[in-house]
């Protein structure tokens, strides 16, 4: 049975439709991420599950019970906010214990639960302090402890890492995943940060303009994007127009404008079903920039020139030109990146490409 299930959810604010006919099932204990740019409806969806917003249409069930009309304070959900929302006038321990006051938990039990929760987030000694005496990362851990101490049916995280600085964010990512794994709570995570989404989720729900673009495991979504939006939103992609000239059980034949025929494996083009206009998706890290006199190999080999270089230390992002096409490549570099204006050989394998139908 799914822990959370949304059926044909629609949310309108006046004339604006924020979420349009959204359905999804979240299985028990899984970590699901709603990913999309701001305004795509991901936070609205989370707030509807939380009960902070009412859906205009559709049903939300938690553990099989329809909860549309259950008020928030009876839903037993753990909610973590972007700005932590720790009660500034209560100590850390009082903050964590807050939800237990409204559950039949004895004083002694409550104290133990608070202690355990603080230990779980690795801050066992801050109980007597006030939130403002803690750093941002610590405050976010306390907010997490406060949300999980009530043993919620679902843990809802609304961009919980976006207020932290970059290094801390990556630590917290690992930490959050560890805690979620340890207690096994079903988690819905909202973010606009693709690397967070890819690193943490069991399942990704990519949204845009209130519509679900694709649902799947991170690898699946990354490798076989269902739409141009997904391909562009996750990672850096080169998207080239062309035609599908034939498809069978194992390969899809494409004729890419300005590049020529390419055979893409059928499983990299699951959304392509007929001949006609199509697009080739080539990830920037799969396009290898090589010296123009490097020995030939089995890869497709094109000649182009470097228009600009964005040096990033261990890697470089190249802005390239082949005929009329502008492409991007992100390559690890040994010591020196290729220079601007240099003529280079651009290589890639057809099996690293994905194909999309024209939309």
């Amino acid at each position, binding site marked *: 049975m799914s822990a959370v299930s949304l059926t044909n959810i629609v949310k309108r604010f006046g004339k604006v439709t924020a979420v349009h006919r959204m359905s999804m099932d979240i299985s028990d204990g899984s970590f699901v991420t709603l990913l999309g740019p701001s305004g795509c409806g991901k936070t609205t969806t989370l707030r509807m599950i939380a009960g*902070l917003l009412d859906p205009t249409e559709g049903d939300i069930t938690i553990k099989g019970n329809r909860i549309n009309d259950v008020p928030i*304070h009876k839903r037993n959900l753990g909610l973590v906010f972007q700005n932590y929302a*720790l009660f500034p006038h209560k100590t850390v321990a009082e903050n964590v214990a807050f939800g237990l006051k*409204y559950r039949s938990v004895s004083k002694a039990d409550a104290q133990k639960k608070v202690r355990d929760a603080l230990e779980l987030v690795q801050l066992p000694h801050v109980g007597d302090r006030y939130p403002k005496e803690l750093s941002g990362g610590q405050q976010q851990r306390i907010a997490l402890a406060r*949300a999980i101490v009530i043993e919620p049916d679902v843990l809802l995280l609304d961009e919980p890492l976006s207020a932290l600085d970059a290094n801390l964010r990556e630590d917290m990512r690992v930490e959050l995943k560890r805690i979620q794994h340890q207690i096994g709570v079903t988690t819905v995570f909202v973010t606009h940060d693709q690397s967070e989404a890819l690193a943490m989720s069991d399942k990704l729900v990519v949204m845009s303009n209130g519509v679900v673009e694709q649902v799947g495991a991170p690898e699946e979504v990354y490798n076989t994007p269902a739409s141009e939006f997904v391909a562009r939103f996750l990672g850096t992609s080169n998207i080239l127009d062309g035609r599908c000239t034939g498809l069978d059980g194992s390969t899809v034949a494409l004729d890419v404008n300005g590049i020529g025929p390419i055979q893409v494996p059928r499983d990299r083009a699951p959304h392509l079903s007929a001949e006609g206009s199509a697009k080739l998706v080539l990830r920037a890290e799969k396009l290898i920039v090589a010296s123009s006199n490097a020995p030939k190999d089995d890869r497709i080999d094109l000649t182009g020139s470097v228009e600009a270089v964005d040096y990033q230390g261990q890697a470089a992002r190249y802005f390239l030109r082949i005929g009329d096409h502008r492409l991007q490549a992100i390559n690890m570099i040994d010591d020196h990146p290729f220079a601007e204006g240099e003529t280079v050989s651009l290589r890639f394998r057809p099996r690293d490409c994905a194909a999309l139908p024209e939309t």
Partner: protein
Amino acid sequence: MGWLLIRGWALLVYIFMFLPVAVVVMLSFNASQFGSFPMTGFSFHWFVELANNDAILRAFETSILLGSLTALVSTMLGVLASLALIRYRVPGSNLISTILIAPILVPEVVLAVALLLFLNALSLNKSFLLLLMGHVIFTMPFVILVVQARLVGIRRDYEEAAISLGAHPIQAFFQITLPLLAPAVFAGMLFAFTISFDDITGTLFWKPGGVETVPTQIFAMLRNSISPEINALGTVMIFLTVGLPLLGMAVARRMALQRGS
């Protein structure tokens, strides 16, 4: 040089404004039985006299009771109104907000006469309750302004977090919102008290016969004679109306600091 002139001028303005107050305070300690210069000695005589004057004591009682009730009622209503206007989408909230704040903008005499005429139209008599209502009407805008300003700064996240943790919205209000709002509520209450305690125009129109507040009592006494007792009473009033808000502001600031927001 220019700045020096401006400073000098500003100083003169302040002296012009506050010297009379200082004179009243000084003369209240004058031993002479005429409330004027030259001072003939330092004495608490007039304060003792004040404490023995039944009419004045009654007026004090009335003023304190009226002020306290005004503070209580207008704070309660003001907090509720602010919550409704800031936290909920009320149709016509802009209009309601303007109407609630309007009593500050309308001259008090106009407000006083209007309320009196209204009462007349309803053929109700003047009463202490009416007086209280009048004071609530023109102290509430101050409460609303102060409370609203603070409420805007309290993020909804706090309440949402509390509710998601299982608190009923009413419990969340008393557990989270009200404590965070306390400095503003407290300040608003003090404003209401001081304004009510100090008010004369409205009170003169609305007070039922035989009831005197301190300001109307002073006014009545002034009509007969200028007794040094009035200086002493003035001194007490000055200390109350200046001291209370200062004290209140200090307490509110402490509370705000402790609450860390």
